[in-house]
């Protein structure tokens, strides 16, 4: 039974300490029946990718409010590719200006969730867009 559950790594890249959103999302995903691992604060892209591989997750969900998203999000996608894990769905959220979203999507972040997002829409998005077969 448990091997059919979607596994998600909720990650906080960079130095940003705002983890309210990340924790709320983590709980909501867990309440929706997913297995959730939360990295805690201040993770480098390398640490996030190594946790994703080690925990064999289907999704990496990153939250960032410091403005360093254009730098840090694409780096995680790149490193996942290097580890032959491009079938991991990568999504992001936080204070992210509208005009940055096309760039992030082009770099392989599948979806960006901005303030006001319902946790239900994140759950639904993950269920509909997961790349790996469960």
């Amino acid at each position, binding site marked *: 039974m448990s091997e059919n559950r979607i596994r998600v790594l909720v990650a906080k890249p*960079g*130095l*940003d*300490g*705002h*983890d*309210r959103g990340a*924790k*709320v999302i*983590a*709980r*909501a995903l*867990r309440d929706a029946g997913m297995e*959730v691992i*939360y*990295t*805690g*604060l*201040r993770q*480098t892209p390398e640490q996030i990718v190594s946790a994703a591989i080690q925990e064999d997750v289907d999704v990496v969900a990153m939250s960032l409010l*410091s*403005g*360093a998203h*254009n*730098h*840090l999000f694409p780096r995680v996608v790149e490193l996942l590719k290097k580890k032959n894990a491009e079938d991991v769905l990568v999504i992001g959220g936080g*204070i992210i*200006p*509208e005009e940055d979203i096309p760039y992030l999507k082009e770099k392989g972040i599948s979806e960006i969730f*901005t*303030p*006001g997002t*319902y*946790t*239900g829409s994140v759950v639904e998005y993950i269920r509909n867009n997961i790349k790996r077969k469960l």
Partner: protein
Amino acid sequence: MLEKEKLQKIRKSEDNWEKETVQEALAKFKERQEAFSYKSDDFLLDRIYTPLALRNLDYERDIGFPGEYPFTRGVQPTMYRGKLWTMRQYAGFGTAEESNRRYKYLLEKGQTGLSVAFDLPTQIGYDSDDPFAEGEVGRVGVAIDSLADMEVLFKDIPLDKVSTSMTINAPAAILLAMYIVMAEKQGVRIEQLRGTIQNDILKEYAARGTYIFPPKPSMRLITNIFEYCSRNMPKWNSISVSGYHIREAGATAVQELAFTIANGIAYVEAAIKAGMDVDDFAGRISFFFNAHNDLLEEVAKFRAARKIWAKIMRERFEAKNPRSWKLRFHTQTAGSTLTAQQPDNNIVRVTIQTLAAVFGGTQSLHTNSRDEALALPSEESARLALRTQQIVAYESGITEIVDPLAGSYYIERLTLEIEERVNAYIKKIDAMGGAVRAIENGYIQKEIADSAYTYQKEIEAGKRIVVGVNKFQEEEETTMEGLLRVDPAVGEEQVKRLLKLKESRDNVAVQNKLADLRKAAQGEENLMPYILEAVRLYATEGEICNVLREVFGKYRPVEIL
């Protein structure tokens, strides 16, 4: 008529009113909800409050007079009739030059104090060229690597006239040292300096995240600053015990007060344990709270905060100087209530929150800008936020009497209710061994996260209305023009400046001072003099923090979901 008889008569009349007048009205139309509670806690509200709600309240004991114990009505006898609050907008981004320009702009527009936002590498003790700083330099605040940057940040700003608040915690001692030396070079003496250093590590562990060292050496650095300031900086607030970030992370109003005051108790205990007399430092402790939309609850919260702290300082710590009993605080409007949807609506939210802070008797105020759910504030938005304070100050008339809401049956009842609930939390935290223990075992983080999750679920279930988010949405969101963008080249520019500095200073002397600091850190001495010496020779923040990291180690958080 005796007081008791009077109350009995009111009770009887109220019963009649409920049975007849109210029931008659309810038969025609029901109330909008089955029950009403104040939004951030589960305290059910009565339909009305009458003198009965205050039957256990003693005016002289519980409310008293402004400027007198227990300060429920304010810390100054004349409050805003004497002097308005300090209008202090938190600002800083990019390089020291850019931030210096923004400060001058805000001062020119009528701001009366400065508040420095540092970037994350500065807050966590990394120089701009550190690999950990990549992508973060100048993003959420200004990048300060050394005294040289500090000199640029305050160029041509008269520090004997303007007070400065610095949001810096784990490396507070270093940034304070840079400020002192920079002011001295401007010709301003240390005893003239007015302002505040946040210096509140416990809420970093609990809610804000910019910790570096474990609790024990962190508490040592904090008491070192207390001691140094009490001897040398009579007008400087040596700490700003902050509930703001605890609330932003999701805490309720009661939790905001409870956890902040519990942290305050921990700092006082640490300083006493380090050998200081409570009256030597308690008068320079300041606080920092959040102002949310729930106007009356917030007013009651501020009033309760003063009363609770006054009692703790006088009764628990036996402080003798009335100055030590006073809870003075800065307020910032609630960033977490701002919406990315229909951003102009945020101006209205900020206005309500401003009213809460002013009715609550704040000493200084930062008003958020309408665009902060989207980016750092643009110049125009920052001006509008400042204008909001100015309109409340000069046009609303609420500054003309002291504590105008006192005596409202509801406000007084709520003030008392909040006080009781906060004291229950403090008792629980005391029983755990104090705030440091309650943070180390994750209790406070868990409480905050629980509240944050409940809040979100209420929004999604439509139990809590947020205009523009779950009601009154616009089909087509208008995009906000003119958002501030930090130039990505700031990082490179800052690194170049840092390398140049390292070539031009006396590196042997710097290394000697860092070695002295290392030795002192291994012992028991106050580290402020050593840090001042290193800073004076342009040792960088990262270099100093690296020495301290080697000696003190790093904090390893418990992660609780």
